[in-house]
């Protein structure tokens, strides 16, 4: 077996499994038949809940018992929230928050 074969198979399996997780709900509920009511309902309420989960996911590695106690992230998130409530401009909020974060991790 050539030495690129196994790595290539690893990539192929990763791609296949990733594609499977993305297509599965569409294969299950996306056909011609009418979608169950509960799936229709979830389509409406799930995005907001998932985005909230993703914010927690981004902050999952914060360590509050160890210096700097997750402060750079928490302050930067607060900056993003403040900027967005003030200007309602997505790019300003994201650039502002990221700039503050990059400055803070050098300070702490």
């Amino acid at each position, binding site marked *: 077996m050539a030495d690129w074969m*196994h*790595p290539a*198979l*690893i*990539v*192929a*399996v*990763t*791609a296949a*499994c*990733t*594609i*499977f*997780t*993305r*297509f*599965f*709900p*569409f294969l299950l*509920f996306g056909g011609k038949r009418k*979608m169950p009511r*509960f*799936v*229709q*309902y*979830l*389509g*409406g*309420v*799930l*995005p*907001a*809940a*998932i*985005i*909230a*989960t*993703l*914010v*927690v996911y*981004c902050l*999952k*590695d914060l360590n509050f018992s160890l210096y700097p106690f997750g402060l*750079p*992230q928490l302050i*930067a*998130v607060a900056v*993003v929230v403040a900027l*967005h*409530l003030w200007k309602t401009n*997505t*790019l300003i*909020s*994201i*650039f502002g*928050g*990221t700039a503050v*974060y*990059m400055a803070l*991790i050098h300070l702490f």
Partner: protein
Amino acid sequence: MSKQFADTVKFAFKTSIPVLCGYIFLGIAFGIMLQNAGFSVLWAFIISIVVYAGSMQFVLVNLLSANAPLYTVAVMTLMINSRHLFYGLSFIERFKAMGKRKPYLIFALTDETYSLLSAVTFPEKVNAKTAAFLISLFNQCYWITGSVIGAAAGELIPFDMTGIDFSMTALFTVILIEQIKAAKHKLPVLIGLCSAVLCLLVFGADQFILPSLILTVTVLLLCKPYLLTKTAAKHNAKEGDSNG
């Protein structure tokens, strides 16, 4: 090029700019890691085209350098990407009208693209379907570009980029604020937030996302009779101006 198409391209690009910044730099980080593990630019290019899953690609580098057995690769991928099972649920209805674009839209539904597409409102002058497709396509192009740069020339980048990946956290935060503002009912956000924090405490940082999503869906289904009466009015009102 028609005026509408030009407007659509412009709109899709503008919408995708936050992801542009995040993906270029996360892609570079991935490319550097892959190159350090002994894989060339060509590998970075192919992986970012066929796998295209941010966090999974970082795990993939470890699997590649460990020469992991294929069943381990399959189990790890299914575990880490299981959250995608839930993303699709929100788009089954919307993607129905997408025609030929649908397979690619499903293939390219990463965390970031999911967030953009679930939050975006298309202005009247753009073709909503083409715009959704282009947003997805642009995002993957940024990711491929970043990973190729990282694998080819990562070591040559002259400035310290540590922390630039915070732009993804910032993007999700902004979209969450938009979701909270737009939602008539704040309960789904609260349910998602509480179950994520709870599961993070119980299962730890590496394991919490799947239990959290299962808990979220369960609680949302339990709240269905209550939430449905509240949101029904809003959905009916929106029906008139939705075009895609």
